[in-house]
């Protein structure tokens, strides 16, 4: 009886020591998962997920503290990519996707208060105190953080134009046939 207890205790201690040593030897610094998650996020820094920026959300996901369906600008594509990376089930997005838009400042109304300059998380607004402010459309991520601070409400979100360079082939719908029907063509008179 005693031998049994002593033997088991001895075995447990030996294994415990081995595990302790391996824990020290193979210690992990930093959080490489968070980096990989961050690489998938759209970097809008809008805060719509409930975290102050994309990196904090990535770190929360890495710790397993948050759901993957919170990112609104990322939309379905980001949701599926995160589900793929983390091996979790893709769930429906919490908030509906909005069409991508950029902020535009109304030059007539702007008073040059610099409040929107300070609010922009990617420094996409140029200007100075008492000078006209302007949004660099190419750098604007559409996060809408500049709208609340403006005291004269001169910023509005303009959806990115649907023109030929931005047009994409749609996903074939289940109803479409191999060659879609075209609108009726009139029969003009012969020349």
């Amino acid at each position, binding site marked *: 009886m005693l031998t049994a207890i002593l*033997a*088991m205790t001895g*075995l*447990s201690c030996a*294994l415990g020591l081995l595990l302790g040593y391996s824990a020290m030897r193979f210690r992990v610094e930093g959080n*490489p998962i968070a980096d990989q998650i961050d690489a998938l996020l759209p970097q809008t820094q809008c805060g719509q997920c409930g975290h102050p920026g994309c990196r904090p959300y990535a770190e929360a996901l890495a710790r397993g503290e948050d759901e993957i369906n919170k990112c609104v600008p990322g939309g379905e594509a980001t949701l599926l990519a995160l589900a793929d990376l983390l*091996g979790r089930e893709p769930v429906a997005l919490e908030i509906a996707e909005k069409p991508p838009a950029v902020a535009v400042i109304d030059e007539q109304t702007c008073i040059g208060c610099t409040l929107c300059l300070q609010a922009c998380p990617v420094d996409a607004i140029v200007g100075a105190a008492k000078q006209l402010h302007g949004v660099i459309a190419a750098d604007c991520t559409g996060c809408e953080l500049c709208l609340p601070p403006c005291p004269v409400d001169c910023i509005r979100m303009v959806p990115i134009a649907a023109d030929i360079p931005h047009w994409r082939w749609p996903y074939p719908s289940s109803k479409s046939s191999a060659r879609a029907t075209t609108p009726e063509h009139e029969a003009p008179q012969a020349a």
Partner: protein
Amino acid sequence: MTEYALILIGTVLVNNFVLVKFLGLCPFMGVSKKLETAAGMGLATTFVLTLSSITSWLVNQYLLVPLGIEYLRIIAFILVIAAVVQFTETVMRKSSPLLYQVLGIFLPLITTNCAVLGVALLNLQAKRSLVEATLYGFGAAVGFSLVLTLFAAVRERVAVGDVPEPFQGSAIALITAGLMSLAFMGFAGLVSS
């Protein structure tokens, strides 16, 4: 030499642990959604199985038998297996954090994988030598990895296909596993032992 070859073929194909002995079904179903995950799990299990079959054989030979406490072998083996799995987890966390994250709960669940304990006990039962026991464990793991990889590949293809709604998800997966098991019955009689 032929003995060893026969042990390998026996454990990998003829008496495959998953499809013939029906052990280790939990990770088999749980980790087979993606090919990369399945391959990673296979490697982890191989490492654990081989190491634990060696250590459990040693613990049995040099601790349990001399002290006459063979009745404690199940507890002792589980202790050993848990330690080996924890060690594997620590190493994997360092070397491949993504795989660690993706395997999630299934990595510590290798401890409860009945195939691992099964190998340790079967080695005892068949009174194998250390080399034979190691080979048996390794072969069992290779068989497990092989079947896991095959199953994951099939599941990936089925996932993009047109599965009727009542069958989607686990249902079609289990039917596929059953068909694979039927296929492996074809290996019966390959090795006369």
